[in-house]
């Protein structure tokens, strides 16, 4: 089975001319099907930039980046938008739409699938909310949920469309220790059950044990890999 993520000789720099500052240098990395990979490293090591490149949120500059069978080097904006629909994103902040209920927020991840019916989408959103233990809060707006509950809604939103890859950026940063652990474990369990690989950027040493592999980055290179 093909690796969901395969990077070769990836280079990326911000700025131009004299101000040019390389953040990723000759980077090679792959994520295997169903694998949970944690990306750690000090601030400025380039791990967030790497995540935005893999997530097709940023245009490539040099090297090769195959994600879910799609080469991102030279991909058009439309191709990148299309690929994003097959990736589940979880951010540091939940970024839920405040004017929608939890169920409607989760269903937003399904609205791009034009073959589904409204009822179908809401049913799938309800089932996903049940899986993250929020059945009773399906019709609550995010403003009335706790931080952990909101992040669980965000996890449900990222997973509901059965993405081929889950990308998470510091998902525990805005949560307390116990809540943060609960959320990432829930995410890991749900992903494992469906065979979805996870690439997760974190500073948080307390969640390293959920990983199949921990990749440490420094100065835009991979410094160390712990299996």
């Amino acid at each position: 089975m093909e690796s969901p993520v395969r990077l070769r000789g990836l280079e990326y720099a911000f700025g131009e001319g004299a101000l040019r500052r390389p953040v990723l240098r000759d980077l090679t990395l792959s994520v295997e099907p169903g694998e949970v990979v944690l990306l750690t490293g000090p601030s400025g090591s380039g791990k967030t930039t790497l995540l935005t490149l893999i997530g097709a949120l940023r245009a490539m500059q040099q090297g090769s980046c195959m994600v879910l069978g799609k080469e991102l080097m030279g991909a058009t904006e439309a191709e990148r938008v299309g690929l994003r629909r097959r990736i589940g994103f979880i951010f540091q902040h939940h970024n839920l739409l405040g004017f929608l209920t939890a169920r409607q927020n989760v269903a937003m991840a399904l609205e791009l699938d034009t073959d589904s019916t409204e009822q179908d989408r809401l049913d799938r959103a309800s089932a996903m909310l049940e899986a993250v233990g929020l059945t009773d809060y399906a019709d609550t707006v995010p403003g009335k949920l706790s931080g952990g509950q909101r992040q669980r809604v965000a996890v449900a939103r990222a997973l509901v469309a059965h993405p081929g890859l889950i990308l998470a950026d510091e998902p525990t940063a805005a949560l307390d220790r116990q809540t943060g652990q609960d959320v990432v474990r829930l995410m890991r369990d749900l992903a494992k059950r469906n065979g979805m690989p996870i690439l997760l950027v974190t500073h948080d040493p307390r969640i390293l044990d959920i990983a199949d592999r921990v990749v440490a980055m420094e100065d835009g290179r991979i410094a160390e890999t712990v299996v």
Partner: protein
Amino acid sequence: MTAVATALLPARLAWRQLRAEKTRLASAIAGVMFACVLVFMQLGFRSALFDSASALPRAMHGELFLLHPLTTALFRPEPLPRVRAFQTLGLPEVTNAVPIYLAQGSWRHPLTGVRRAIQLVGFDMEAGAVNFPGLTPLIDALKRPDTVAFDSRSRPEFGPVPALLAERGSIQVEIANRTVEIVGIVELGASFGADGNVVLSEVNFRRLIKERKASNTDLVALRLRPDADPASVKAQLTALLPADVVVLTHAELVQWERHYWETATPIGFIFAFGSLMGLIVGMVIVYQILFADIATHLPEYATLKAMGYSGGYLNRMVLASAAILALLGFVPGMLASSGLYDLVAKATLLPLRMDASRGLLVFGLIFGMCSLAGLLAMRKLRDADPADMF
């Protein structure tokens, strides 16, 4: 899912977002309503003033009219040979040709004696060429020498004539240095060219305006056989008559008069400018609201982009918000304007009415205003960059 339902998803999202912030929604609707009322009032006044300016030709009764081509407006007519009226009778379709005489004379205020120019409208009372409300019962009285009927909607500077008339039964006034008797009241309306009007017979007109050649007239109203086609008679007359007359239908005569006031005065410009101001203020309000909505939701919009929503989807959502605001502001705006029209019409006697074509025009303007605001606000969406989300 049908294509229509898919296309409506951004609009549903827009509506859910607008609905969530009640105060913001209310102020946006109030802004659109304000622009709507302002434009309705400006256009209403504009049309009412042009309508009242063309009250005299509109009161004329005839299928076709003859006018000297150099006549710009009826308060300042260029005389045409009266014989043209009789020439038209050569066509079997023309049953009646009524010369109408127009001039301004100096009226002396019945109480203070102050002089002021008043419009005189003279014609054969029996010919039925003019249709002023109140005229019919006065026809016999107006056939007597030196009698006139006064237009009750003349400006008040001519004196409280209707009140005096009601009090005394009949009053004597001086017009063009000759004493005449006012025998009754008609309703016509002041225009920009004439502050007031008196109506009198052809013979009495000649008694007052002595310098006029009897062989000249100012306007000719033609009555046609009921089965005649005015357009074909017009074409025949145009071919028949020399170039010192133009043949106009009733609508063209009214338009001739309106055209003068629309082009020769800044009235049209003033009201167009007022409408534009209203639209600009409305646009700025809608833009501010939409812009603030986008600015406060940038992270959420960036998240939607990261989830695979295209820039076009979010653009459609902003435009849908603008369209919803246009609709929600227009409906109460139009209702409020209808109420104001009634109120102002009662207070000023101006003919202000809500009509479908103006409603459509204003809806188009308001919709355009909101769409433009949406297009401007949409530029802010570019700041929602999902690459900055991590």
